[in-house]
């Protein structure tokens, strides 16, 4: 509004000047142009006070020209009016640039804040992920520790079982079969019978106790063997029934049923010469084979 009013005054004075002298001095022409340019620039809104001052200067120069004509005094006043208009224009540009700089800095600050927030959130997610991974590793370690403890316990119990068995039977470690406990057939059964002798029960009780201390995952095979007296078919049947009898008795003494199987081999696997009484006695036997879980 102020600018429009000032411009109106300037143009009114220009009209007066036109009456007093046909040709205004170049300084006044330049001042008018400078003021017109300044009033259309950012000074009109960003620095109206400076522009108002320029309008005042131009009015004074116009009045001088109207009353005095093209004198040195008028040219001096026009010269100053031109500078004032340029100063107003520069002041407007200065404020515009400062405003733009301020907005840019505010934008940068906002962007930095947003970036910092995003980084913080990302860090938070990474920490949460690390925590989950840490918990998983801790859980896995606990499982591994428990497995190690269980294996160590199983190994101890197996060693103890082997020691116990060694006291009551012949125990051998076979590289391919596992631990082999050999019980004499004469101790367990009467001749041509598959029923356990009373004296055999005590020994088998001790064997069962030792086996229950053993690794729970190990497999147990009860093998029945005979000498070569009698037919092969008969001996096969007898050895199978004897193996089954021993197997059933071990199960009745708390050895897990799913761990134990029975197999009769008859006369097919002698360990001694069947020609002598001693050899035949050794061939009449029951072998309890304990296979570790990994087999």
């Amino acid at each position, binding site marked *: 509004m102020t600018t429009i009013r000032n411009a109106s005054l300037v143009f009114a004075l220009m009209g007066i000047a036109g009456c007093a002298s046909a040709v205004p001095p170049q300084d006044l022409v330049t001042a008018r142009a400078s003021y017109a340019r300044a009033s259309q620039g950012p000074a009109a809104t960003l620095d109206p006070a400076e522009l108002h*001052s320029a309008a*005042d*200067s131009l009015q*004074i120069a116009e009045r*001088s020209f109207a009353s*005095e004509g093209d004198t*040195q*005094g008028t040219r*001096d*006043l026009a*010269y*100053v009016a031109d*500078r*004032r208009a*340029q*100063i107003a224009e*520069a*002041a407007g*540009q*200065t*404020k515009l*640039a*400062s405003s*733009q*700089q301020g907005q*840019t*800095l505010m*934008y*940068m600050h906002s*962007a*930095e804040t947003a*970036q910092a927030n995003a980084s913080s959130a990302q860090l938070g997610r990474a920490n949460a992920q690390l925590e989950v991974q840490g918990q998983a590793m801790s859980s896995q370690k606990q499982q591994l520790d428990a497995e190690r403890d269980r294996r160590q316990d199983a190994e101890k119990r197996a060693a103890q079982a082997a020691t116990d068995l060694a006291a009551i039977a012949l125990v051998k470690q076979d590289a391919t079969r596992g631990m082999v406990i050999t019980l004499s057939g004469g101790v367990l059964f009467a001749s041509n019978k598959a029923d356990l002798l009373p004296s055999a029960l005590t020994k088998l009780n001790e064997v069962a106790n030792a086996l229950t201390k053993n690794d729970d995952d190990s497999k147990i095979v009860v093998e029945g063997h005979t000498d070569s007296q009698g037919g092969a078919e008969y001996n096969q049947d007898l050895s199978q029934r004897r193996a089954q009898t021993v197997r059933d008795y071990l199960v009745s003494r708390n050895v897990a049923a799913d761990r134990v199987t029975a197999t009769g081999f008859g006369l097919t696997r002698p360990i001694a010469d069947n020609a002598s009484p001693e050899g035949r006695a050794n061939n009449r036997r029951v072998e309890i084979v304990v296979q570790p879980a990994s087999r």
Partner: protein
Amino acid sequence: MHGSLIPVLATSCLVLGCGASYPVPTQPLADTESAERSATELGAASQPKAQLHLQLAHEQLSRAKAAIQGGDNERAAALLVRARSDAELAIALTREENAKIGAQNATDQSNTQKSTNARQGGQ
């Protein structure tokens, strides 16, 4: 600042019309020299547009001093008003240039920041 120029110049014109003896423009001389120093200290000499007006101010100041020496105080006063307006324009132009450089630097930094953020976002 600028408000004081016009009465001085108007007074100069009135005195010219009367033809009476004119006092030595001591205060306008001091004010103009001060404005010229401010423009120089602000760095007007290193910026082409501002440098032109600083030079004009300096030349008219020298002419004003010569006029005072020659006893033409009236012309000296008018020259001092012109010189002071040029010095003040040199100051305004220097400030404008500095503000534009500051805005451009901020824009450059902002663009760099955007590029950096874009690279980090793409990783």
